[in-house]
């Protein structure tokens, strides 16, 4: 029998959700300050209106939930604590995370929609979810003339979403919240760097800000050497850094990385993409002196092998297809490998046009790219997709099963893998890895089916669907303003579910089902 959720459950979820919404509102002060400094009047009011909406709705929701909880407490004395001091349970945490991301999408889309560069509110929501989920698919119109403020917000959504919306709230706006770990896990970060989850969130920001300073400075220098004005080079450097390290894929110009057409930019962004695809726990161990971990860690080994295999397939595909990019090693590296690395790390930066990928690349090259995008980077990084740890675990499980067949029946076969420490392979670990992998494959399939129902071919549909669900952002031309609204909704769902790695989404679905059918 399914039990209907109590009003107190909804009040607890709503109360903590309102806190996260208010935290999101505070992050908008940054673009608001930018618009003030740059003298952009229209964008200033776009953000001022949005911040007002967020604060009014957030505070109203907080008061309503508190009042609802207090009235329930009077009826049932079991609720002794006040709502603020009550720890959310696992269900509350997961639902809060799932709803936070949807709320962030809607609220983050308001200033974009007000700018007039997005034809409909759905397009603005698509852009907002694409930003927060670090996907990078864009439906912006006339991006080259978008204000600095809105462009900063687009890239900031990636920086916030890459770290995790809840991580942002935990790091800066929430103090001593013991339900934090449940929400942290809900954002697809099942590994704690440090024993305390708040300190873990702060370490994640420490790494991000260190690389923000180094990466932006490097990109700024290259931009200036390339002839850009210092202020413009700094803005582009910061935006490109946020999109690269958080494996997002937005760029300030409509031509994406092709706009710069510069070796230096491409090498720096390639390095940043790889850094973004590394597990934050591994960052911690490397930064505290355990440098051998880089060579021994299963994720880094699998990533290396996987990048090489998928690139070999893509390179052969480009050569067999007679692509101009296979005419020389530097070109193959610059166009083929850059796209592959961008896809594998879930970034989505492009040094070719989307239509070129769709029309000029052979099916084999596209399959190589699709495999790379589907696999993704490391767990607890900013990437999407199945992730290297799960692929490594499944591979180790295969080896274990083969050993069981080959070895004498009485032999004890124990498989180990190295991930920070030596870990024995257990059935429950393999099961969890296989479940998430299966869920991703189904998600890729749903988008492919939707694409085909809208009249697109199988390979392009699979490419675009994988790109959306694995939060990559590479496009072969399907994502455009003119695509059917239903397909936009499917891609938004894919970006959301793919970023949260399903558990929070399934919990929300179960909660809604219980609310309808429960007794």
């Amino acid at each position: 029998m399914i039990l209907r959720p109590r009003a107190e459950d909804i009040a607890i979820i709503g109360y903590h959700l309102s806190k996260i919404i208010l935290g999101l509102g505070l992050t908008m002060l940054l673009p608001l300050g930018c618009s003030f400094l740059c003298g952009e009047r229209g964008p200033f009011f776009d953000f001022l209106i949005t911040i007002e909406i967020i604060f009014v709705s957030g505070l109203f929701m907080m008061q309503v939930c508190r009042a609802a909880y207090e009235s329930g407490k009077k009826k049932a004395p079991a609720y002794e604590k006040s709502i603020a001091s009550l720890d959310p349970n696992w269900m509350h945490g997961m639902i809060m995370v799932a709803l936070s991301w949807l709320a962030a999408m809607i609220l983050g889309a308001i200033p974009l929609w007000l700018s007039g560069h997005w034809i409909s509110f759905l397009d603005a929501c698509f852009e907002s979810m694409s930003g927060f989920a670090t996907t990078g698919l864009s439906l912006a119109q006339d991006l080259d003339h978008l204000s600095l403020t809105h462009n900063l917000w687009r890239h900031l959504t990636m920086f916030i979403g890459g770290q995790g919306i809840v991580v942002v709230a935990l790091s800066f706006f929430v103090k001593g919240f013991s339900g934090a770990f449940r929400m942290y896990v809900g954002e697809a970060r099942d590994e704690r760097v440090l024993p305390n989850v708040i300190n873990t969130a702060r370490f994640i920001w420490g790494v991000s800000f260190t690389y923000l300073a180094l990466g932006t400075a490097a990109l700024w220098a290259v931009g200036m050497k390339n002839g850009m004005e210092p202020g413009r080079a700094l803005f582009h450097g910061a935006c490109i850094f946020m999109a690269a390290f958080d494996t997002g894929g937005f760029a300030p110009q409509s031509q994406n990385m092709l706009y710069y057409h510069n070796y230096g930019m491409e090498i720096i962004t390639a390095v940043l993409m790889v850094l973004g695809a590394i597990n934050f726990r591994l960052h911690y161990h490397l930064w505290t002196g355990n440098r051998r971990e880089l060579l021994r860690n299963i994720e880094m080994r699998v990533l290396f092998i996987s990048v090489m295999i998928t690139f070999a397939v893509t390179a052969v595909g480009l050569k067999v297809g007679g692509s101009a990019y296979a005419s020389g090693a530097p070109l193959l590296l610059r166009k083929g490998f850059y796209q592959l690395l961008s896809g594998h790390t879930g970034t989505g930066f492009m040094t070719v046009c989307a239509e070129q990928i769709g029309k000029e690349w052979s099916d084999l090259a596209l399959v190589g790219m699709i495999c790379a995008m589907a696999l993704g980077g490391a767990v607890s990084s900013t990437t999407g997709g199945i992730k290297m740890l799960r692929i490594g675990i499944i591979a180790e499980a295969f080896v274990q099963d083969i050993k069981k067949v080959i070895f004498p029946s009485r032999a004890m076969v124990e498989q180990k893998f190295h991930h920070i420490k030596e870990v024995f392979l257990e059935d429950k670990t393999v099961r969890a890895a296989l479940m998430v992998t299966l869920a991703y494959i189904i998600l890729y399939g749903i988008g492919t089916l939707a694409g085909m129902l809208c009249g697109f071919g199988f390979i392009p549909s699979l490419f675009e669907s994988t790109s959306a669900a694995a939060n990559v952002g590479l496009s072969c031309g399907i994502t455009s303003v003119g695509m059917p609204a239903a397909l936009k909704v499917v891609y938004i769902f894919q970006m959301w579910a793919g970023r949260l790695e399903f558990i929070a989404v399934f919990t929300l679905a179960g909660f809604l089902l219980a609310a309808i059918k429960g007794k």
Partner: protein
Amino acid sequence: MESKNKIFNSMLGIVWEVSYAFALMLAAAVICVIVLLVKI
């Protein structure tokens, strides 16, 4: 002294991470050459 060690370790960590990214690019360059040399 301890904080100096921390900064030094972090800097070395960054060097290792960046080296890994360059190793990926180097290995990819080798694959490029092999694919282009082999007549498919």
